């Protein structure tokens, strides 16, 4: 176990987003994640931090890695994890979100992890339950645990976040990962840029504290970290961008475009990747440059920390 820092606890009931969190709260979660990451590297045994606690994974949207990551994190901490996916539940039968929340609340879980395809839905649900709620992604709004694990990965490679130049590239408009990362990186003192075609950059995003670039060459100049975003299949042909080949040519990351950035720039991707759309296949597999698989590894540690921080003793 690493040394305990001054942060005594996480001061909020829920983790609904990064926006509004103080640096102390974020650092508390990241430090706790570091602790678990170190533990996982050396140990294979379950902990009993959350023994006899019950967590519900409530996923209204398909997910493999996030759901599995939370499930694994809970199990590593000794909690009982329940998975509810939309297909097999009463939500399909027409139950409203609020009714679902109240029903689950009546079962007295210790924590609910929620993903929903509508922005703000997780907050609505959190208002109707007594336990803590973790947002595992709400529409294009926020995905706080992803931002935390990205920062943890950056910290492990770059030692600090303050002062780094970070570029987030691709479909900013529809990305919750982008929004959470913008808040988190700005809070910790990084310089954040977004790069993409104007059709994928939402209005007045500058007000969130970023610089906007439409060309990779200009946007990637001197950056330390590049976060590539996934381009959804249905947005590829003709609606937001003309075609895959055009997108890859001007916005796909390959070794040539990578030379615009710092020579030791780190490449992140929240997954799942579209090889040959937003990222060159060879580059994605280059372990020196891309930390894509390290991100997945850190994901479990971050979720362990979040579960631990939000489950309160009764």
């Amino acid at each position, binding site marked *: 176990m690493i040394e305990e820092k001054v942060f005594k606890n996480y001061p909020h009931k829920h983790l609904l987003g990064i926006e509004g969190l103080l640096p102390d709260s974020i650092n508390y979660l990241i430090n706790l994640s570091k602790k678990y990451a170190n533990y996982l590297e050396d140990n294979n045994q379950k902990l009993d931090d959350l023994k006899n606690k019950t967590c519900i994974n409530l996923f209204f949207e398909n997910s493999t890695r996030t759901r599995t990551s939370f499930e694994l994190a809970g199990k590593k901490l000794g909690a009982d994890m329940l998975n509810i996916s939309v297909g097999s539940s009463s939500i399909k039968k027409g139950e409203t979100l609020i009714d679902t929340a109240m029903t689950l609340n009546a079962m007295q879980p210790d924590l609910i992890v929620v993903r929903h395809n509508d922005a703000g839905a997780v907050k609505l649900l959190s208002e109707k339950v007594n336990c803590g709620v973790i947002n595992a992604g709400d529409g294009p709004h926020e995905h706080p645990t992803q931002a935390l694990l990205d920062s943890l990965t950056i910290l492990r490679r770059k030692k600090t976040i303050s002062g780094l130049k970070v570029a987030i590239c691709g479909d900013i408009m529809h990305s919750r990962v982008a929004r959470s990362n913008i808040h988190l990186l700005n809070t910790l003192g990084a310089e954040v840029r977004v790069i993409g075609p104007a059709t994928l950059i939402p209005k007045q995003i500058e007000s969130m504290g970023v610089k906007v670039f439409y060309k990779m060459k200009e946007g990637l100049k001197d950056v330390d970290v590049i976060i590539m975003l996934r381009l959804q299949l249905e947005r590829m042909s*003709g*609606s937001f961008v*003309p075609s895959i*080949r055009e997108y890859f*040519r001007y916005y796909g990351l390959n070794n040539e475009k990578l030379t615009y950035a710092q020579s030791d720039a780190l490449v992140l991707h929240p997954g799942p990747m579209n090889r040959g759309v937003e990222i060159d296949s060879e580059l994605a597999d280059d372990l020196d440059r891309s930390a894509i698989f390290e991100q997945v590894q850190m994901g479990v540690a971050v979720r362990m920390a979040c579960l631990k921080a939000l489950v309160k003793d009764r």
Partner: protein
Amino acid sequence: MNLKIPFNNSKLPINYLLKNGSVIDPDKNTIEKKDVLIEGKIIKDLKKNISVDEKKFKIIDCNNLFISPGIVDMRVNIGEPGFEHKETIKSACKAAASGGVTSIVCMPNTNPVIDQPAIIQSIQRKAREVSLSKVFCTGCITRGAEGNEICELQLMREFGALGFTDGNKSVSNARVMKRALNYAKSFDGLIIQHPEEPELSQEGMVNEGESATRMGLTGIPTYSEAMIIERDLWLVRDTKCRYHVSHISTKESVEIIRKAKKDGLPITCDTAPPYFILNELSLENYRTFAKLSPPLRTEEDRNYIIGGILDGTIDVIVSDHTPHDQDAKRLPFNQAEFGGVGLETLLPMTLILVKNYNLSLIKAISLITKNPSEILGLETGTISPDSEADLIVFDLEKPWKIKSENFHSKSKNSPFDNILVQGRNLMTFVRGRLVYKF
């Protein structure tokens, strides 16, 4: 490919000295008697009294003639591929060269439409074979010009597309237009709009009003043009993308664009000779050769278009060259195609503004050379040392009668047939080669 006189596309290098012509320089805003020395592809020198070795240079006396940059025509339908019975790249280039047009910018309404880089390459290859006027392309905004999904705009630009337009179709879906403007803004592209609300002009044949009513034809209201421009201006205000309106024809359009320019929006526009020379009365006897898109408007509209040209609201004059074979025009008015040829009449029609409406000669020439060239980002449309020698030599006063049967264009559907005009192109130089001599 060998061409007969008066055309010449031989690659033999000949150097020329044009003596004593009045050189119209739209960049410097001057008309001065000078000699022009053309060596290889470029203008080597431009000053008074140049003397050279007569064996090495062919000397042409241009006394009493004007020398100006070659015409850049930013709205031409070339017919090839797909409509070779109306026009081919070869016949369009011949028409252009004889009319003094050294750069033609073709619309993407070919068949297949120009919505991907490969088609641009094939047109350029063909144009190199013909080797008369320069041929540039625009690309479609939407795939198949169907107005739904945006094309590979950036790739097409890399392959030479100067701007993007659905040609004779308006992008009527505001969401698609917004995305196109937004996307083009990312790489400083140019979006060119044919302004016509399709729902309002559906089945319309002529300008809505007295003429249409008397003739029993369905009308197209003037505001069908204005409302698309006004709608697009909202999108331009938001996206800041460069936006060009094609062939405006109405009073309202002139007023809207005049105001938008005053507001500092990145907007430019053009019109075509029929809209400042003719009005809807030319349709008398159901003359299908005067059936154009947009339709000929009222005398009031025509005067506003002239006013727009005089005060600089209208940046460019285009030929709006739209070739149609006899079979497409010798039909009942409702069934005939829209459009007229114009490459060979663009210069004299523009000069009418000089003769009759007190437009200065330099301004008139700028409208068909420097201005379009600047909007499209071309390096032509200028006459200065070390630039490529795309030049024309014309006689400002020479009277002649437009006879469509003498056109080099494959199609003869001119709305100006049998009109008497003054001013004629005599020589056309493209990249230093004399490609046409009257």
